[in-house]
């Protein structure tokens, strides 16, 4: 007989059942606002959009069932679909690593304790709370090829033909990367917290062993902040797949959605165009569900890979 089996079972009396029911109702009552919100604003729209994805629906007439036609159209006939996928994958593959590295380097600069450090931390964080639309418009000005201050500085530094940034399909996405790096504060602050949490005695022990700066970074800092890197990569991927505001605002300033030459047509902007400008809400719903599935797959793959690369200090609870 096990220790658990030796515990005598208590009889559940009607009074206990009533008490239990009352407790559950109290819990439900407090949870009900969230439950209602979830049902109305999350679950219902999700089920609706799944239904619409199998219909032809133009927002003005009744949805007409077309089965898998929208999905078939997406993969075989929509010229802009693959363009938007390529542009989005570019942001995922290029921008996220750059953001993570930049955030780590910035956080490492700000981890030192001195009097002015709080001011510097605030300065680095502030851009991240600027509204995305305002920031995008500001960067359209900053990166204006003729009168923008960036190109004027580059010209003074001797650069003969500075990039045309948002006017050039080869430089438009790097321009967005710069915009993203300017707003790195939110990611930086998380890395800062992670760096401050690294036990000092590990560095002291490494110093005693004669480890150099790179070795300490490689064998102590990186593993200890690997959970933060993991978090940043996951949230970065999710955010990048839904990349919309900056792309929408900048391209609208230089010639229209996706301009120049489709280089700023991302998946989310293509979805928006189909649903709200082309009156193809059924097809847009199909795009949304494909996006969900792909994002989920990417996230699961990274979670699976994290077992090899992420180190948790509280190892027994992994």
């Amino acid at each position: 007989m096990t220790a658990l089996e030796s515990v005598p079972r208590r009889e559940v009396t009607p009074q206990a059942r009533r008490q239990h029911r009352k407790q559950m109702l109290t819990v439900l009552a407090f949870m009900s606002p969230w439950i209602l919100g979830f049902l109305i604003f999350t679950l219902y729209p999700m089920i609706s959009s799944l239904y619409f994805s199998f219909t032809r629906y133009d927002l003005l007439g009744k949805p007409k069932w077309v089965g898998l036609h929208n999905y078939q159209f997406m993969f075989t006939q929509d010229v802009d679909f693959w363009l938007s996928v390529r542009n989005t994958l570019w942001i995922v593959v290029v921008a996220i690593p750059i953001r993570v590295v930049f955030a780590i380097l910035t956080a490492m600069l700000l981890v030192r304790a001195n009097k002015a450090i709080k001011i510097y931390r605030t300065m680095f964080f502030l851009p991240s709370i600027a509204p995305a639309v305002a920031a995008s418009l500001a960067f359209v000005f900053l990166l204006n090829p003729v009168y923008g201050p960036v190109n004027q500085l580059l010209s003074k530094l001797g650069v003969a033909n500075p990039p045309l940034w948002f006017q050039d399909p080869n430089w438009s996405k790097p321009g967005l990367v710069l915009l993203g790096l300017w707003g790195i504060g939110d990611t930086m602050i998380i890395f800062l917290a992670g760096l401050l949490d690294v036990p000092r005695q590990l560095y002291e022990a490494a110093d005693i062993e004669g480890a150099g700066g790179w070795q300490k970074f490689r064998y102590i800092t990186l593993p200890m902040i690997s959970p933060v890197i993991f978090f940043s990569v996951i949230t970065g991927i999710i955010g990048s797949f839904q990349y919309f505001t900056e792309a929408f605002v900048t391209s609208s300033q230089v010639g229209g959605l996706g301009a120049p030459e489709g280089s700023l047509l991302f998946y989310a902007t293509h979805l928006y165009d189909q649903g709200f400008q082309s009156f193809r809400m059924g097809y847009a719903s199909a795009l949304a569900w494909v996006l969900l599935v792909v994002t989920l797959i990417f996230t699961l793959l990274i979670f699976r890979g994290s077992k090899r690369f992420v180190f948790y200090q509280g190892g027994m609870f992994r």
Partner: protein
Amino acid sequence: MKMLLPRKLAAVSLLAAVSLVISGCTAGTDDSGGGASVAPAPSITDKTPVTVTMWSPWTGRELKQFNQIFAGFTAKYPWITVDSKGGIPDDKLIAGINSGKPPDIAISFGVDNIGKYCQTGAWQNLSSRIAGGDGIDLAKVFPPSALTYTSYKGQQCALPFLTDAFGVYMNDDQMKAAGITAPPKTLTELQDMAKKLTKFGPDGAITTAGFVPWFTYYCCAMTGVNMGNMFGAKWYGDDGKSAFASDPQWANLFKWQRQFVADVYGNGDAAAGTAKLKKFIAGSGDEFGCSQDFVRGRVAITIDGEWRNAYMKDCSVKFGYSTAAWPVPDDLPDRYGSGSAGGTVVGIPKGAVHADAAWLLLRFMTTDTATIVHMANNINNVPTTYDSAKSPQLTLPEQFKPFLDIYANPMSSWRPNTGIGDTDESVLGKLMDRWDNMSVRDGDLQSELQKAADQVNTALNEVSGP
């Protein structure tokens, strides 16, 4: 301890959500396509007091000016009160129609949406009312151009209420300095004038452009609509399919643009001209402000809408300017004087509760000369009836007159209304963007036009569907 309740709760929640979806995820409307119904409607005799709800996109000063017109309407129809709400764009209007709670009458700036509204019946077919006891003699009241962008396959589901028209603006001071005394009537004349008016700096960069032949220059200069009208290019063939590849005028348009750039800006080299022009355009000022290129004298001749006159006045420009119809291809002299015309439209949404009263208001707004003149004077758009365009009460500047003539020209038009909104123009615009930047070679033009046509045809098939 059993945890049955949360599981049951989850199941009930899911069932409720699915039931909601099945029972009516949308109020929807009948996909009637606005079926043709031309039996004349009887005169409206019911004078029961009623309040008509009106939605429009205007805000601020323009909304205040707009609301002033209802005094005249109420004086004529004292039993009808108008409840006017502004700041309502098309997406909110669509939401209202979709929810079954539309306004009685709606104004839209989205001339590209009319085809969709007509096709789905979202806006009511007005043909029977137009032909009825309280009707309108359209041919006597409106120029033909007005009826092209307010109808779809013969159904009149909207009427015009002020409009935009496009022509050329010319910097008189620069033209005089270059010895040019008359506006260009042909594209050859435009090109010759542009050469004389263009100035280059010591580094070879353009400092003043005679004319900017760039499809994506600002929002409304060399758009697909404007260029298609300039060249008399057809958007669709008789079979209803896209004519981008089958009508040679589209190819002629693209070829003209490239040789213009090469000749005026590149010394015969299109790539060199494109590079210079690209850099020049990159320094363009805000289109809807005083730093707009023509307003600050950076461009000598430009295509623009009639609203630019208001900016010229508000920005107190120091140079003289004049306006005219845009030049046309040398082999199409008869098209000179025409242009693009399309703008604000008004209609009665499906499900309007007081449709009869709404019709009386719609008819008043779109035909009453004093109302249209009031709006034209205050909003600086083109008045949309013959009588209002001739009214001595118009206080618009003399440079406005060519736009009135352009609007009245029988060859002026917008773009054919379809059920795909502005998808056709968007597809063409993407090709124009790539052509501007020389990502499409001369030899690939026809195949690219065919691809664009195929894309439009695919979109049309998606709408009509199996």
